[in-house]
């Protein structure tokens, strides 16, 4: 049964702040960075007005933000932090610490290009740079999803089967600063959905002394890593349960994969985040031209939902992965994951990768459609073409 809730016009960053507030974090260390800053400002406002009972720590760096979040979480406090770009890079070593210690804290990451050159506009390379750190990674496509994923991220991460930290990622400005109508759940409903954090596995408490963060030898390291993998694998099941419960209460909540005209698609686009906006328009326009196009949007990148992806792509002939990120010297990062996950499938037969929208470069649906048409025609005509292309590079 859906519960009534208030609708507000807020930005993605405010949605992150509201999501965090509803989850009742107890220690919140955040360092400001564009374009995340309005999240930290809103949270301080919540605390100042007495709407959120938490200890804000105005840290001197992102490195300390995550250190404080980790140690506070180890004492048994639920924690939240937020960052972007260089800030995420500065946290990097601690990403592994949080995951290795199995501490289910939550961060919102506003995707922004990494210097140099300096850009304050989106590129998913910052959060994707942490893809091997053992964090659950969600990619939202609008402000509502930002809020919803933050609440779900705590419940999934804190589940005894998972016990891993989570990042809720969304593109700078396109989502962080765009004002949308967002349903704000009622606090009592969230309280019923998300119980208090009472950890048992890792806890700093004088009544049962425990050394946290120790040195291990070759007899233990592999087992530590394997258990992280087991926790990560359990995320699919737990996220599914949590999402169903979420849907029952609030009547919404996208799962790891959203499909759009994908059922009968012979040409399938795959992407994550806000690129799905222009991609959906391009799909509709391609359909108008008689091409059976479709879209698969991933909201979950870690763990990578390869099996689910295989189920929805198995009938397509051609798959084009749209990446607002790139691993220089290789391909778009999502493309690498998609092709690996679908390597043993009979279909799709061909994979292409577009690198586009980097550093906030606008992706016009009409241009995107034209590029897709070109790729598709070349493919159907049997012409050879490079699998990876940088779209819209000036001077090419």
């Amino acid at each position: 049964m859906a519960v009534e809730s208030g609708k507000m016009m807020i930005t993605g960053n405010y949605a992150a702040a509201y999501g965090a507030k509803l989850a009742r974090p107890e220690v919140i260390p955040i360092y400001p960075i564009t374009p995340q800053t309005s999240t930290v400002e809103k949270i301080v406002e919540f605390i100042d007005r007495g709407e959120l009972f938490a200890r804000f720590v105005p840290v001197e760096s992102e490195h300390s933000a995550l250190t404080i979040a980790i140690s506070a979480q180890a004492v048994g406090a639920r924690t939240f932090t937020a960052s972007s770009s260089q800030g995420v890079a500065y946290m990097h070593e601690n990403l592994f610490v949080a995951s290795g210690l199995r501490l289910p804290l939550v961060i919102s990451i506003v995707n922004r290009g990494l210097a140099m050159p300096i850009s304050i506009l989106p590129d998913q390379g910052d959060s994707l740079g942490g893809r091997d750190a053992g964090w659950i990674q969600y990619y939202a496509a609008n402000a509502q999803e930002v809020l919803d994923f933050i609440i779900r991220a705590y419940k999934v991460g804190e589940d005894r089967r998972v016990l891993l930290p989570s990042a809720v990622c969304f593109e700078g400005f396109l989502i962080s600063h765009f004002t949308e109508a967002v349903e704000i759940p009622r606090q009592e409903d969230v309280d019923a959905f998300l119980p208090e954090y009472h950890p048992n596995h890792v806890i700093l408490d004088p009544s049962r002394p425990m050394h946290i963060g120790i040195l291990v030898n070759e007899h233990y390291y592999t087992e530590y890593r394997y258990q992280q993998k087991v926790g990560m694998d359990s995320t699919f099941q737990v996220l599914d349960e949590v999402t169903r419960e979420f849907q029952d209460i609030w009547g919404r909540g996208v799962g790891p994969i959203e499909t759009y005209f994908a059922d009968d698609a012979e040409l399938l686009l795959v992407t994550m985040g806000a690129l799905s906006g222009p991609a959906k328009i391009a799909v509709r326009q391609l359909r108008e031209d008689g091409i059976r196009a479709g879209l698969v949007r991933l909201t979950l990148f870690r763990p990578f939902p390869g099996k689910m992806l295989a189920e929805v792509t198995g009938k397509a002939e051609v798959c084009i992965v749209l990446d607002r990120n790139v691993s220089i010297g290789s391909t778009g990062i999502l493309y690498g994951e998609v092709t690996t996950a679908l390597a043993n499938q009979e279909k799709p037969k061909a994979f292409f990768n577009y690198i586009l929208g980097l550093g906030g470069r606008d992706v016009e649906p009409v241009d995107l459609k034209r590029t897709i048409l070109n790729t598709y025609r070349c493919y159907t005509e049997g012409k050879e073409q490079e699998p990876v292309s940088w779209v819209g590079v000036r001077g090419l």
Partner: protein
Amino acid sequence: MKEEHTQPLFDKGNLWCPGCPLGLIWRKILEVTGPMAMASIGSTCSGMSAVLHPSPVNIPTIHIGMPGPAAAMAGISAALEILRKKGKRRADEKITVFTMAGDGGTADIGMAALSGAAERNDDGIYICFDNEAYMNTGIQRSSLTPRYSWTTTTISGKPQFKKNLAMIMAAHGIPYVATATVGYMADLTKKLKKARDLGSGFKFIHLLGPCPVGWRFPTNMTLEISRLAVETGIWPLYEIEGGALRITTDIKHRKHVREYMRPQKRFSHLDDETINQIDRFIAERGSLDLQICTPQPFSADDGERRQRQVDSD
């Protein structure tokens, strides 16, 4: 039923090198804190070796990498504070939160986190165990390595001065700053107790710990070297509380620094004249703001002048 408390807080067996003072120090700290304590530790001799399994230290600790100890301490006390306010922990419980970190983790890579926690006056006792180089990785220089000292990365002696860390911390205006060393255990104990009982806020203890391996002296001389550091004026023992500095161990008849430096092979390349120069400095300046060969400039000119003096004397 509290089985864990029947265990000694500091148990038998540890991994420190022969002659290392860390066993004595940990035992003393735990004696002062009792079982109601938690520590954040650095990636150091003083921290990591204390919690390698099986560990002699029977209080909860957390280790979050090299630059982390000050921020980790801040996180622990922030969490305790809010959990008490929320009724998730007993409001009247008293837990001593402290950090045990090394000179490199404190004054080099952890400096920003340290300064940040001090500026916010986050609660806890930060103990910098200073053995004057990266000893855990095999004797590489840090910013707290004294001038002239040999290390594996300052083969012909360190050209730079040692940071005057205690004074840097005092400049943050924190409630308590003290220097200490293992050879003056009663002094250290008093300071630990004072820091423990001062109430919430950032307390800093700069603890000199002679290292037989890195300083190259016989393992039976650790306490003697520690005492000589004080007796020669190289390591003045003082505390700064409420902005007021007080010498806690007054040295009436200061010994020549030769007595401190000559037993240490890390200074063996120095000739008598250089050692005399160092001694003259300490004599002229008084020992208060000096920490081994460290005339700390009050102004750029002053510093330059003194630097020239060191070089030409």
